[in-house]
């Protein structure tokens, strides 16, 4: 998979438990630069937790994660520096309600990258245009539809110039007719060469956009391969069962 390409995220034997509950039980995964990895699996399979460990929103209880060669599971690592390069988009958008769309996209640029107001605004407007919302710059999140909010959230992550982006069920909270506009934005990002780790239930998106599909269940990777391999010729019974239920 990673043949000839630089590895950007490397996960080794990752374990995570909440109290007595083991959510991740030894996950190994390498993501190459420019690769789009879609992670599938039933709820509770640990796919979201895996994603959240990559920018340390969850602390791993075992194993190692390297992002661009830096071990983020090491407590001496400045996690804020790592997070600057790892963008994340959430299921619940999590836009800052007290700021306009533009303000949402500008805030971290100014506080983290130390960009000037003018520079941050220029970049923010450019990113909003990329997600097709340049005319909504001065609108507060409450006045935007779910799809628009999620696109602003993507623009906000993009404004930090991330090297990897994590998408955690970003369309799950959206009305069906709003899903497409978000997926379109993600598709164009993928075409532009962005490295993406995507947890989703959108099979169509996985088939069209993914370089690799990963099927997780009960805290381990059960099966992985190209979309054709996983969707059309699943080897494991659990994968077959899951895909059967989805269709």
């Amino acid at each position, binding site marked *: 998979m990673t043949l000839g390409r630089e590895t950007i995220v490397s996960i080794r034997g990752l374990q995570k438990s909440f109290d007595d509950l083991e959510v991740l039980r030894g996950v190994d995964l390498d993501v190459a630069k420019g690769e789009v990895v879609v992670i599938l699996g039933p709820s509770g399979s640990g796919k979201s937790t895996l994603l959240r460990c990559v*920018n340390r*929103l969850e602390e791993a209880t075992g194993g190692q994660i390297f992002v661009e060669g830096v071990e983020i599971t090491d407590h001496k690592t400045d996690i*804020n*520096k790592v*997070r*600057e390069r*790892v*963008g*994340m988009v*959430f299921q*619940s958008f*999590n*836009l*800052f*309600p*007290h700021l306009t769309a533009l303000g949402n996209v500008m*805030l*971290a640029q100014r*506080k*983290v990258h130390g960009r000037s107001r003018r520079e941050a605004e220029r970049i923010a407007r450019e990113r909003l245009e990329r997600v097709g919302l340049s005319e909504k710059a001065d609108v507060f999140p*409450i*006045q935007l539809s779910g799809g628009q909010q999620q696109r602003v*959230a993507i623009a*906000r*992550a993009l404004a*930090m110039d991330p090297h990897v982006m994590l998408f955690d069920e970003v369309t799950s909270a959206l009305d069906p007719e709003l899903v497409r506009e978000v997926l379109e934005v993600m598709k164009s990002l993928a075409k532009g060469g962005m490295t993406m780790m995507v947890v989703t239930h959108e099979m169509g998106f996985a088939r069209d956009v993914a370089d690799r599909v990963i099927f997780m269940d009960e805290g381990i990777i059960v099966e992985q391969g190209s979309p054709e391999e996983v969707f059309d010729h699943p080897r494991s019974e659990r994968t077959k069962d899951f895909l059967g239920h989805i269709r």
Partner: protein
Amino acid sequence: MVEYGSTQRPRRFLLAAAAFLLSCVLAPGAALGAEAPSAQTTFIPVTGTIDTLDIRFEVPPGELEVPVTLFLEFPAEMRPDRLRGTGVRVSDEEDRVRPPAVSAAEDGVTFRFSASVPPPGTMLNIRISGLETPAEGGSYPVVAYYGEEDAVERAGEFVIPVPDPNLLQRAFRAMEEVPFLRQFLSPSIIWGALPLLWDGFQVAVAILLVSYFAGIPLGLGVAFMKMSRLRVVRVPATIYVDVIRGTPLLVQLLLVFFGITFVPGWSALMDALGPLATWQWHNVDATQFYRVFIVLSISSSAYMAEIFRAGIQSIHKGQLEAARSLGMTWVQSMAFVIIPQTVRRILPTMMSEFILLFKDTSILFAVGVFEITMQARTIQAAEFNMSPMIAAAGFYLMLTVPLGRFVANLEERLSVAETGRGGKKRGRPGGGVLVGKPVAESTVSTREVGLR
């Protein structure tokens, strides 16, 4: 009351002029430039009634034997028989006269000098308070008789001009006539209490402002401590909040206000402060202020800590995650994402805390700090009348009602801003903010905010 300035001033001038003319007639022998005998009346503006009558009486020449009598004959409308002994005071500039015995009767007041004869030429200052005011305005004469007992002679006359009461003054006088109304709503007593209550109001507001704004950073610190993942940080903060919210403010006040003076270093600190510890404002000492600030800021900080904690935890944890995932530090996330949202949410509660703290300043009465309640209590005890307490209540309402309305309004507008919909009142309707301490609770666990 408004008419007071326009009607009273010329009359007072007339009075002075009349007194001067009279004195010329009565004491033609007096050297020019010497103080002339006169009478001066002060009125209570709200009722137009006589507050005090000051009579300056010059002892006439002549060798007399004790006992000597000065008799002031009053018109019947002034009811001098109702004067109490304490309402009459006699003094002279050089302090040469032994105070006379005073007795009041239907026709006038008798001053009996039995120890020694006042030296001729002495100016006696006689202040009479508690005189009845005639129902109608006009000039009322007071005639002075002086001499050995049973041989008094007319020694002078003072004319007391009494202005006609206006409509409001008549109404207020009518109130004073009804015992129940006089007991609770005496216009003259309330009028007299206003300056002191105003002093007390300023003291209360000063204490309120200092304690409230000192409580905010303190409370914020405790709130963050309470949300810490570290037990050693969390437990002391929890105990602090539990103990302070779980004990009566009065107990805390008595304990700290008096107890702090036994704390080693307190008196040394006060000495070191020098002039900073000896100033006084509106009858309240600097050290009283300091001790009160300590008690009230600590108390309010505990309540605020819970408000802040509940407010911060009511912000969806995704907000902090989003901020942190963008590379912002915890402090940045708090400062630019969480706190600004929290402020909007807790603003109404914080303002009701302000109102509650203002009302709590009344408890300082227990340690003798001259705030509103203490002032009212003092006047009430002196006058044997409840009206100052009613006035004190008015002083509290002056601040709490407008603020309470403002809070209710603010809550409404903020809920519109947050949900995009209006009309839905959350929880306490109307003036509910005025009642009881807010017990801010959140179902969000501390774990979620402990995220790093």
